């Protein structure tokens, strides 16, 4: 198969974006909408809500910690077989869950098995999108990630309807059938062979080289800090509003408004990321700083209009963050190592996610309101911004495409004597 020098930036790439759209919808949309099953599980197994919510927590943890495995496998076999296997595993987990007789059964089937399936699908797909695009990478990633937002809207009422018609066992069977579409999405991921891929070795060597790559490690630290603060509003906003005296329905409506502006933010940021010259990391820092500022302002706002405006602004900037996060990575590590890089990134940044929510809850319990937790979350985001400034070429005026193949070439240059190796690369 002939190798391309440049990513196609279109053509079949848009089908890959479509596949990624449905993928992110089926993975994260299902995870986010799983809350409607909680009530049913609590009633059916007569367990506390805290123990039931471990199901989704285990699923998310397995998905994020398993990402490096998915990435390593896709480096070796290509994304298509890995994603299709992941889809089958995810659907199988849901199917087995429908026969559950105890909560442990659900932990293992949905949490572990479906989680493994999701780990094998998400990171390889996003990496594949990054492979297919270079000039329009941010836009493509942004469009792909809108799947998450739209599916959260669509799946909650759908699951509710399934529950009322089929009860939770039947509903799980049908969600399993829905998750099987991940296999079809995987089929769309045609392998692409780029010139850069030849420079790197197998998955083990790639992982090793990534762990010694300074900019990548700094980026990981930045993202972990960002992740710690990122999810706080989604978890605590409704409770904070109720503390201020809002009714549950307007509070939930405010979250929906934030979700819509999140969607708009993703697409707008994707387009902007490609239109603006220079490293994409600068845009990431911009959106990140704004998100941190808005987050810290939440406790200050008391009136309804101020809160609504803040929610819209926060939604926009936090949505704008997401596609840019994926676009920065190829600039740092090159498309050859993109799969491993993304997998490793997902795994390490998940630590931030795991840390953030309990920390915020702890602050709430200690201080009595959410002021401290919002301010601390904003501080984490701003700290992430600070680390982002230390990334290479942050203040340069060159665009990303030139620096990309160069990063890959300088890696071995750092470890070996420069002159003889230059000739070898050519």
């Amino acid at each position, binding site marked *: 198969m002939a190798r391309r020098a440049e990513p196609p930036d279109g053509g079949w790439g848009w089908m890959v974006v479509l596949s990624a759209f449905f993928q992110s919808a089926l993975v994260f949309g299902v995870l986010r909408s799983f809350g409607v099953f909680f009530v049913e599980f609590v009633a059916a197994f007569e367990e506390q809500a805290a123990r039931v919510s471990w199901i989704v927590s285990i699923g998310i943890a397995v998905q994020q910690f398993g990402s490096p495995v998915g990435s390593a496998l896709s480096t070796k076999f290509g994304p298509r077989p890995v994603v299709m296997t992941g889809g089958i595993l995810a659907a199988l987990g849901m199917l087995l869950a429908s026969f559950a007789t105890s909560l442990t059964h659900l932990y293992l089937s949905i949490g572990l098995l479906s989680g493994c399936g999701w780990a094998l699908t998400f990171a390889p797909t996003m990496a594949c999108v990054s492979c297919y695009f270079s000039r329009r990478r941010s836009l493509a990633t942004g469009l792909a990630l809108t799947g998450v937002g739209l599916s959260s809207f669509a799946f909650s009422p759908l699951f509710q309807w399934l529950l009322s018609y089929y*009860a939770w066992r*039947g509903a799980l*069977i049908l969600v399993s*059938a829905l998750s099987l579409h991940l296999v079809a999405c995987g*089929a769309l991921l045609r392998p692409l062979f780029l010139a850069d891929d030849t420079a790197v070795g197998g998955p083990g060597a790639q992982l090793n080289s990534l762990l010694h790559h300074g900019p990548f490690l700094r980026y990981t630290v930045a993202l972990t800090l960002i992740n710690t603060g990122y999810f706080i509003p989604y978890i605590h906003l409704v409770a904070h509003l109720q503390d201020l005296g809002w009714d549950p329905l307007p509070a939930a409506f405010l979250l929906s408004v934030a979700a819509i502006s999140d969607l708009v933010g993703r697409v707008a940021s994707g387009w902007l990321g490609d239109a603006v010259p220079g490293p994409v990391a600068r845009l990431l820092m911009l959106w990140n700083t704004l998100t941190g500022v808005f987050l810290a302002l939440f406790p200050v706002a008391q009136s309804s209009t101020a809160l609504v405006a803040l929610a819209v602004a926060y939604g926009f900037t936090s949505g704008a963050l997401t596609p840019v996060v994926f676009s920065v990575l190829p600039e740092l590590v090159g498309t050859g190592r993109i799969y491993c890089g993304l997998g490793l990134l997902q795994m390490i940044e998940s630590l931030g996610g795991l840390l953030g929510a309990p920390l915020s809850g702890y602050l709430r319990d200690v201080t009595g309101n959410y002021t401290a937790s919002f301010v601390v979350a904003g501080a984490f985001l701003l700290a992430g911004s600070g680390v982002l400034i230390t990334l290479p070429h942050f203040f340069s005026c060159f665009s990303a495409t030139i620096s990309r193949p*160069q990063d890959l070439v*300088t890696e071995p240059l750092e470890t070996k004597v420069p002159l003889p190796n230059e000739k070898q690369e050519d």
Partner: protein
Amino acid sequence: MRALLGLRGLRGLTLALLPFLCLLVAALPSLADGEDPDSPFTTLPVQEDDMMAIDSNHSLEIHNISLTEYSTMPIEKNITLDRPSAVKLICELTTSGDLNSVNVTWKKGDDVLENNYPTSATGNILYTQYLLTISNSKQMGSYSCLFQEEKVLRGTFNFKVPELHGKNKPLISYVGDSTVLTCKCEDCFPLNWTWYSSNGSVQVPVGSQQNKHVVNGTHANETRLRITQLLEEDGGSYWCHALFQLGESEEHIELVVLSYLVPLKPFLAIVAEVVLLVTIILLCEKYTQKKQQPLDGGKEFEQIEQLKSDDTNGVENNAPRLRKTEPAGQ
């Protein structure tokens, strides 16, 4: 000696008269002014029903309805009782007309009650009260106070046993599964809970098969019926009955038992659709590749193009490459 006896006697008489004197002193201001506006019933004679109200077995419930001469609609108040209680019903009428000309009656349903209810007036407000003890289901119902001027003004107190809450939507379960039907009421303590299942209009008590049906409840105000090893015939209407001293109430719960084939059919349909999609996608790809392969006879041509682009990349990269080695030392 006689003086001493006289003194003692006088002291004893004073001691005996002291409570009466105290009462008189207390009652003097109210006798002088008429009614104390805060408590209109201090001058009313204490009835026997009031004494019963202070009895520890029963609790006293006081309920109030206010009517004005402009009330066009009859006012109703719903009162929930689950155990025998002493009840004090108070109606007050605010009117600008002459209070003495108002005719006051109390009715239970349509029957007029006996004429021994105290009525009092303060300013332009007329108060009437009715005391009763409700101890069995016959005494439940609607009690009304009627003020008759030019038109009749009516206030009604409706006594009901607590309502039960089940689920409004049907409970869905599967063959071989187990399910729990719950009935509960707020702040109530029924004497007894029973479950019935009905096919059509016949109600059959539930609980005959020991392993299949288990009735228990963690609190007094709820009952749970657990049915294990469901079969399709177990579906249908279920009724939970709560028996109170003052009556009974019931609630209907619908149970639907589905077989696994019901969700399995759409599942298989969707699986078939996914397999079809995957096949189409892979076939399309093979087809387009086959189309390209005859053109790939010029593979060398492509490789030459590749080398050309590599060369140009190499030239472009020379200058930035040199620059990069400095910060790369870190």
